[in-house]
């Protein structure tokens, strides 16, 4: 230290300089010249000041600390706010920082963007007839610029909660999924049994046995103090009576693209206008188109082959699948004359439509040039048949022998990270263990590329109890299982929430230093399908179990369980009817529906 060339500026000048390196330098030289006694004096002086350490981060110029903070994810930023006052100041009011966090998220996963329903405005699909039929290469598509303009639109909407609150909301949602907590619940009882249920935020559509269609608005409560479930008022609760046919309504479909058109034109306005949505209902072997606006019904000329099991929308068509495996495609505009009809010769358990947005895929089959912009996945017990929107076969995903398919979800994202995956929840033949298979699909779902088992240590429970009900939405699974307890608890139900993806933002990968006992062997299934560890009977809503971190750094997740209490008056059983990324719809007995809000 003493070999340094003497500085030209004097000590006082250096120490008073506004530049930190200069001051630093001077201080260093000072300490170098100190002897033992001097250092003791310094120690005493330092002890008397309020801060014994200097805060490097807040000493950085603003643009540098901002740059640094961008590398931290939402949870870290929340924790950093609690460090000291200056850090809190830098982070809390820095709107751009929080906005950058939202921008980092996958738009298909982020509640704020999804619920704003503007997400679909990223890919305007105003009218299929006007879409260009040429390909649009992924590289030409500027997702980030679109995302920025979407964020601007969200920001300018009245009642916007602010970017920091938005990030907190997302993180709270993630935590609630992980720990099985909900913030609010809503119960509605109907006078008759409820059969088909459709959850399409912000609407919940219930059809009862009358048959009547109830359309309930779920987001009237957002931002407002949660109230009791309201009386029917024309805006938030619509009931339509379906002219009686033979039998009850077996299924109903919802057109999620219809929202895009009306919202696009009314972006800045309030939510006053209703979307024009025609609901197709299958009543016996006839299809009716129900117009909620006018309350009218039109019976379609299409006669379904027997009992209609499933209905769904795919781009500009409606697909109906009957009990004996007949698949009929017909357009969603009048006169609804069927386009194609074919049979898959097996009982279809579930129909999932996949829309590829504006991308067109092509394939040559002999002389035939197959083009498609959407596909439909027909799940049956042994696998999934995938057809394109012209009813031509694309591919089949077959499961192993003896394996029973329970539920599927199809993901085809048009934004980064461009996921094309089929998630299949199935039951193994011998152990009856439920597992999830993730099948990587080629673009356009034209073929299967690979498949992998998702986290086999996942304890999704075992099949065997017919009262169990399962619902899936993208990467999230909700399972309601029944339990018989020999103690006073008797019979009760447990709702388990599982998030396969477990991260929406860039996750913080870290390993806690405290040692964690080695968890059970990976392929358990013998005793622990419960996920409830350390369950105490005093707790009502919380279950045990939860994430633990193995020493190796892998995260072994179990679903948290919510115990569902039902009144001793009517021992009604719970079942899960539908779920989306932030809401769960449970049926309590045949006539009551309970909605749990996770955020």
């Amino acid at each position, binding site marked *: 230290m003493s070999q*340094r*060339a003497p*500085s*030209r500026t004097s000590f006082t000048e250096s120490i008073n300089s506004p*530049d*930190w*390196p*200069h001051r*630093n*330098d001077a201080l260093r030289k000072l300490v170098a010249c100190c002897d033992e006694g001097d250092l003791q004096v310094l120690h005493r002086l330092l002890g008397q000041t*309020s*801060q*014994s*350490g*200097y*805060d*490097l*981060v807040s*000493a*950085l*110029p603003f*643009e*540098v600390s901002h*740059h*640094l*903070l*961008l*590398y*931290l*994810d939402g*949870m*870290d930023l*929340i*924790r*950093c*706010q*609690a*460090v*000291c*006052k200056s*850090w809190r100041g830098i982070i809390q009011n820095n709107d751009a920082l929080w906005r*950058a966090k939202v*921008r*980092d998220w996958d738009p298909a996963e982020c509640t704020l963007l999804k619920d704003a329903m503007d997400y679909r405005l990223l890919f305007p699909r105003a009218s299929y007839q006007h879409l260009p039929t040429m390909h649009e290469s992924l590289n030409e598509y500027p997702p*980030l610029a679109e995302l920025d303009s979407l964020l601007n639109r969200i920001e300018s909407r009245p009642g916007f909660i602010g970017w920091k609150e938005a990030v907190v909301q997302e*993180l*709270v949602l993630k*935590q*609630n999924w992980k720990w099985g907590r909900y913030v609010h619940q809503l119960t509605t009882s109907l006078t008759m049994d409820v059969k088909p249920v459709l959850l399409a935020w912000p609407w919940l559509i219930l059809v009862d046995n009358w048959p009547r269609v109830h359309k309930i608005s779920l987001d009237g409560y957002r931002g407002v103090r949660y109230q009791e479930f309201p009386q029917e008022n024309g805006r938030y609760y619509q009931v339509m009576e379906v002219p009686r046919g033979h039998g009850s309504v077996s299924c109903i479909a919802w057109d999620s693209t219809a929202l895009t058109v009306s919202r696009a034109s009314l972006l800045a306005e309030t939510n006053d206008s209703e979307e024009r949505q025609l609901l197709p209902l299958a009543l016996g072997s006839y299809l009716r188109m129900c117009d909620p606006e006018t309350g009218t019904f039109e019976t379609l000329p299409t006669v379904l082959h027997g009992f209609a099991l499933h209905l769904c929308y795919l781009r500009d068509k409606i697909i109906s699948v009957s009990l004996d495996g007949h698949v009929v495609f017909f357009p969603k505009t009048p006169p609804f004359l069927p386009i194609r009809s074919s049979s898959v010769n097996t009982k279809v358990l579930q129909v999932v439509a996949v829309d590829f947005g504006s991308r067109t895929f092509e394939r040559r089959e002999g002389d035939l040039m197959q083009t498609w912009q959407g596909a439909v996945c027909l799940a049956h017990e042994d696998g999934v048949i995938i057809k394109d929107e012209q009813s031509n076969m694309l591919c089949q995903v077959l499961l192993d022998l003896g394996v029973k398919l329970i539920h599927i979800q199809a993901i085809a994202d048009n934004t*980064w*990270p461009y996921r094309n995956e089929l998630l299949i929840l199935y039951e193994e033949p011998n152990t009856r263990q439920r597992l999830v298979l993730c099948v990587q699909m080629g673009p356009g779902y034209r073929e299967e590329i690979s498949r992998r088992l998702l986290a086999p240590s996942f304890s999704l429970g075992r099949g065997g109890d017919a009262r169990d009900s399962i619902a899936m939405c993208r990467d999230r699974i909700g399972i309601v299982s029944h339990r018989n307890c020999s103690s006073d608890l008797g019979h009760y139900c447990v709702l388990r929430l599982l998030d396969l993806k477990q991260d929406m933002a*860039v996750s*913080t*990968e*870290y390993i806690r230093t405290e040692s964690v006992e080695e968890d059970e062997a990976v392929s358990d299934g013998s005793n622990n399908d419960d996920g409830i560890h350390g369950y105490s009977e005093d707790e009502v809503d919380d279950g045990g179990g939860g*994430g633990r971190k193995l020493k190796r750094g892998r995260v072994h997740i179990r679903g948290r369980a919510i115990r569902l209490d039902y009144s001793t008056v009517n021992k009604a059983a719970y079942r899960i009817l539908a779920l989306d990324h932030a809401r769960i719809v449970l049926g309590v007995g045949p006539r009551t529906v309970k909605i749990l809000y996770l955020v």
Partner: protein
Amino acid sequence: MPVILVSSDNQDFKVDKEVAERSILIKNMLEDVGESDSPIPLPNVTAAVLTKVIEYCEHHRNDPVQVPEETDDPRKRSNDIEEWDMKFMQVDQEMLFEIILAANYLDIKPLLDVGCKTVANIIKGKTPEEIRKAFNIVNDFTPEEEAQIKKENEWAEDR
């Protein structure tokens, strides 16, 4: 062709032009100055820090110049630091921050990114108390404020 850089404590450093031009600030200065051989003063950077910065630029002299482009992955990641860079950044905290400040002043974006990522990695995953310990920060919240913050972040608790 060598360029002479002068630190704030008057130490001279001779570096190749190519190496010096990793710093956009120096690059612009050289363009303005032209063919003159006069040394470039850097009053905001001390010799110790400048040594480290030059070491970085020497090692990365052949790196392609980064275009600030929106790549496919818009997320800011901090787990992709090269091994050499990681070893380079194993210095005490003070030097780390001085390198960051110098990189900011000299406009060497890759070095700034590496520095910020390194600090971000120190912060990641730590509770507020652990962060305070790591950076030697004093908790200057009053007990009431502390309680309020704790209440706000109750949902974030992992237990």
